[in-house]
């Protein structure tokens, strides 16, 4: 199978994530879509590492996983705090700040 197919897959995953962030209303799901985007980028990095024939892209993928884990920690902390004070994790309910 051609390596380029992995790039198409990564672009599709990224697009699904990017659209999901805009369309979905539950902040946990929005956050999952962001994680999907990060993993799409990871897939692109690894594919390019294969195409370019060096390891730098795979190293980036490891760093991204660590950073994504940190993001989960911070993100869930914020979402859980909001949920505890409002009993809702919907991004539509969070609209006190006027537009």
């Amino acid at each position, binding site marked *: 199978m051609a390596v380029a197919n992995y*790039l198409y897959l*990564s672009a599709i995953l*990224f697009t699904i*994530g*990017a659209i999901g*962030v805009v369309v979905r209303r539950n*902040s946990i799901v*929005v*956050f999952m879509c*962001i994680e999907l*985007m*990060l993993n*799409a*980028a*990871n897939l*692109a*990095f690894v*594919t*390019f590492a294969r*195409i*370019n024939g*060096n390891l*730098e*892209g795979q*190293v*980036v993928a490891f*760093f*991204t996983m660590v*950073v994504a884990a*940190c*993001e989960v920690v*911070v*993100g869930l*902390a*914020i*979402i859980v*705090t*909001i949920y*505890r*004070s*409002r009993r809702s994790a919907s*991004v539509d309910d*969070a*609209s*006190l*700040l006027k537009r």
Partner: protein
Amino acid sequence: MLTAPSLGYLLLSPMIIVFAAAVIGVLVEAFMGKTHRAAVQLTISIGALLLALVQLWRIRDLSSTTAAVNSVTIDKAGIFLQATVVVLALIAVLLIADQENFTAQASAVPGSNEEAVALLQKNQQTEIFPLFLFAVGGMMLFPVATDLITLFVALEVFSLPLYLLAGLSRRRRLLSQEAALKYFLLGAYASAFFLFGAAFLYGYAGTISLVGISSAAGSANEVFLLIGIIFVSIGLLFKISAVPFHSWTPDVYQGAPTPITAFMAACTKVAAFGALLRIFYIGFAEAQTIWQPIITVIAILTMVLGSVVAIAQRDVKRMLAYSSIAHAGFLLSGVVALSKDGLAASLFYLMAYGLTTLAAFGIIGLVRDSTGEVTDLNRWVGLGKKSPLVGSVFAFLLLSFAGIPLTSGFIGKFAIFSAAYQSGNIAIVVSGVLASAIAAFFYIRVIIMIFFTDPVNDSVSVIIPSVKSKISISVATVASLIFGVAPSWLLTSATNFATFIK
């Protein structure tokens, strides 16, 4: 046989000091009793920042500039940007030290018994200091990073603490938490774009270093380069709040605790613009025909929209948020200029704007009624008559934002527009001057409200600031004044330091 890589600890030492102090801060937070903890945390923060500043001064003339196996380049411009971040952070930490702006226990539900007990027992957590130091460390790393991994890691290291800090306000906690949620979701969204763009830049150049991306020009797949530039730019333009990626700025600036807004507005701009300048001046320099037209349009949109929408704002913090969007537009004309003058002007502008912003938000924190800060502009009416000193300082800062001659804002705008003019970009200069004129209108309207209208609401008053806030606001104001009246020192050093080394 493996050889140990040489890291260049001397060049990294300013950042190592700040990060180490942050880690010590976490330990202090975990193990120290509540009586002296705040004082100890403040001492650690100030001490680390001062040490970092001294260390930056010591390494300013070193001939070797690359450290950590070429992933960091501490060149002249990098040192200037790091020093700017540290100086602004030193002023900001004195505002942040006013603990009563922050929630006693972030984990307690707003309005709950737990929260009331924590307040009553003065069980104030001080985790803001380590979070603040981590953010500062990330901000120092971001403008000197020269490969895509380091850029991404630095971006996250300074963003993640800021997301949390935005949610730690003591009053109006729901607003504050909502600001944190918005900032986090949109910020993470933007960094995903940045990372995806970085992947395509790597695919294009076969290397993750900015120099490698620049030297791959012409030999590789241009489509990858185009995708890479666009997606990486989205990530960066979000951080500097350029139109159309600005929508988070007013909400977050309004909802976050005012000292944090001050810190965020001043220091994030420096770090993000530093990285933006380095990426565009080094990594994308060969591809300028692709990005220059796009960034020019974005710059013009940003300054015009920022200035126009600011007129309609009824909230001081939102107004300054839109003003910061307009300023991002002005600063982008320094990026588009792509010259040494453009870089020098941007360095000057960032310092001058940062000082003015810190002082302005410092003053907003002083105007209160019984429930907390008053940010509704209609209630600021006649404030200059109640408190002439605070009123006139705020008026001076607004004039500096507007860029009236004899203020640092004027010198900055003049330098940046003349650099853009010399690079032949007339459109950006014309729209910049027009946008400044629009912006001057609403700044002056606020001054008229403060001074020439009779006060109506007597419950609003200016509180007596604590010594720390007093020092912070006066240092920032005086520095902003000096750089306006006698700018030559800062201008000369900005010019001397305006070199990126490839």
